[in-house]
């Protein structure tokens, strides 16, 4: 970090953001309490997954998109199969839906535990890293690791392995577990649930910077707390609309300082997706255990302070653990692990709630079952413009702090959104001008 000595002008920057997923930096220039420039600079290389999918069989899509992220591969697989099955006119059986929801709970558990305890908690307890924090707070780090292990075990049981699961396929799963596979896991989840309830109380008593924003929130709509299913998306101030209308209701733009596209509503507003958006709209749909934990957390709804997202994630940890136990208790192994289908030419959209927020996929494919076009809109790229706006809004507060404290406040704010920069780098259309041999390549 550094400070520019120009008169009346202060620059806050961190060249490599720590405790976020992927590589990014931020830059904030303030003059007389007014923001001159704010950039969340995502310089992680574009990864061209959408281009990679073209020409591949729809059967390969779940395995390929799982590679986008080692933290939330299930989210990518779930949005992918939702989009593909919608295009194919398939509706999964209630047993398959329950099993997918259970798998997704596992991912929420491991991802939220990682962020709450190892990435975000050090900010509140005054440490640079989880490693430094562990020396003084072994119990906190061990609690997080135990919870994460339970989530990983759940993903491994259903997905075949904890990282980049391999059992998800169009129409269901490649195979489904026997009920006995959950016996020990259920015990571990029960223990983790008790820890998660304590975690809500613990995070609720942390000290949060006073910083409330008038957000436009976006999340899935449905009968349950949003996770693996939902036919419509709700944006506050806009209303609810079908998932396939997402591209008409929002627009993505490229900015020079980022390899990730930024999202706005069609009226040009920034918006926020993720745990706060979900909780504010769907708190009545939380599992009763999570609802009780929320009532005792000290949070006031709607939550509009991003620093309090650590509490919201803790509440969602309780929800995911409690719901996972309920699903296991009522689990009946499906008669067939997947339903067959006939490929047809179609376009399908699907959205689910990744740990970090709304994840929208759209695929166009032919009757030969090959992908013609793919579009993947991850939550971090949707939130990127909002994060920049929030950095602008916190600028007057920075003037009261010394440079190190001000920079830290900005970093802590960015970490509040749990950005996954590696996921966010889906890219603009690339056009290569080779003189008279012009090739227009639409690599996303």
């Amino acid at each position, binding site marked *: 970090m550094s400070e520019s000595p120009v008169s009346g002008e202060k620059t806050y920057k961190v060249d490599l953001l720590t405790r976020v997923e992927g590589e990014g930096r931020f830059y904030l220039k303030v003059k007389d309490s007014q923001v001159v420039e704010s950039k969340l600079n995502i310089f992680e290389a574009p990864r061209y997954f959408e281009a990679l999918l073209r020409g591949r069989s729809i059967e390969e899509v779940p395995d390929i998109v799982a590679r986008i992220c080692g933290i939330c591969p299930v989210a990518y697989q779930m949005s992918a199969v939702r989009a593909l099955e919608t295009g194919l006119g398939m509706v999964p059986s209630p047993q398959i839906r329950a099993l997918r929801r259970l798998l997704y709970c596992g991912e929420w558990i491991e991802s939220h535990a990682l962020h709450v305890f190892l990435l975000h908690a050090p900010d509140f307890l005054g440490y640079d890293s989880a*490693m430094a924090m562990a020396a003084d707070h072994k119990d906190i780090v061990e609690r997080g690791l135990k919870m994460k292990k339970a989530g990983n075990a759940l993903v491994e049981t259903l997905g075949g392995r904890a*990282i980049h699961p391999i059992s998800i396929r169009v129409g269901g799963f490649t195979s489904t577990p026997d009920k006995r596979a959950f016996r020990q896991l259920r015990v571990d989840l029960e223990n983790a649930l008790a820890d998660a309830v304590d975690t809500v109380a613990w995070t609720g008593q942390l000290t949060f910077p006073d910083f409330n924003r008038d957000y436009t929130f976006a999340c899935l709509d449905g009968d349950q707390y949003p996770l693996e299913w939902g036919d419509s998306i709700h944006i506050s101030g806009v209303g609810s609309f079908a998932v396939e209308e997402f591209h008409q209701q929002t627009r993505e733009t490229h900015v020079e300082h980022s390899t990730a596209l930024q999202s706005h509503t069609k009226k040009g507003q920034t918006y926020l997706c993720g745990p706060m958006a979900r909780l504010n709209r769907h708190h009545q749909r939380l599992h009763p255990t999570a609802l009780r934990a929320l009532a005792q957390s000290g949070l006031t709804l709607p939550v509009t302070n991003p620093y309090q997202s650590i509490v919201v994630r803790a509440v969602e940890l309780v929800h995911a653990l409690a719901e996972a136990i309920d699903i296991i208790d009522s689990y009946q192994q499906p008669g067939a692990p997947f339903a067959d289908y006939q490929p047809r030419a179609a376009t399908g959209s699907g959205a689910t709630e990744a740990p970090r927020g709304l994840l929208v996929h759209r695929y166009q494919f032919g009757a030969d079952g090959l992908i013609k076009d793919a579009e993947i809109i991850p939550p971090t790229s949707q939130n990127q413009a909002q994060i920049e706006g929030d950095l602008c809004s916190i600028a007057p507060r920075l003037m009261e702090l010394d440079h190190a404290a001000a920079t830290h406040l900005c970093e802590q704010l960015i970490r509040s959104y749990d950005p996954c920069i590696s996921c966010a780098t889906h890219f603009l259309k690339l056009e290569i001008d080779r003189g008279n041999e012009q090739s227009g390549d639409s690599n996303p």
Partner: protein
Amino acid sequence: MSLKIIVLGNATAGDDGAAILAAKALQLESDNRVEIIFAGRPGTGLLDLLEGPEPVILMDVVSGSGEPGGIISISLDQLTEQLQPAAQTSSHGFGPTEVLSLGKVLGRQLPSGYLVGIEGQRFDPGEQLTAAVQQQLPEYIARVQALISMGGQAAPGP
């Protein structure tokens, strides 16, 4: 099991997949006393994989140890004593050194064994290894094979 081999890396990130390719070649030759775990980039999940009494061989691709294709072997004890963990850049940034250091701080019982690494050169998307790494892959496999034959308990060559 009397020996656990944990293989780290990403098969779709250029040279980062070298240890995975090497381990697949090993698997054909190994016996049922050896458990091979393809762990990808497990982050802190590596701590869970290190639980248990068996000695461990960590196979990984390293960066900054020397020439591309160069092979290093270092005991897990030395790894935690001599190397400084990197700044915590992300959960993906929890490499073996950071995870072992975290385990040590937490007072976890860590296994004996070795990290055997091969120096990578390019980590771009793709499954192709660079020529230097590809050329050294047989030697890398031989080093790990030698260590397996010694039960994962002795230094595998220079």
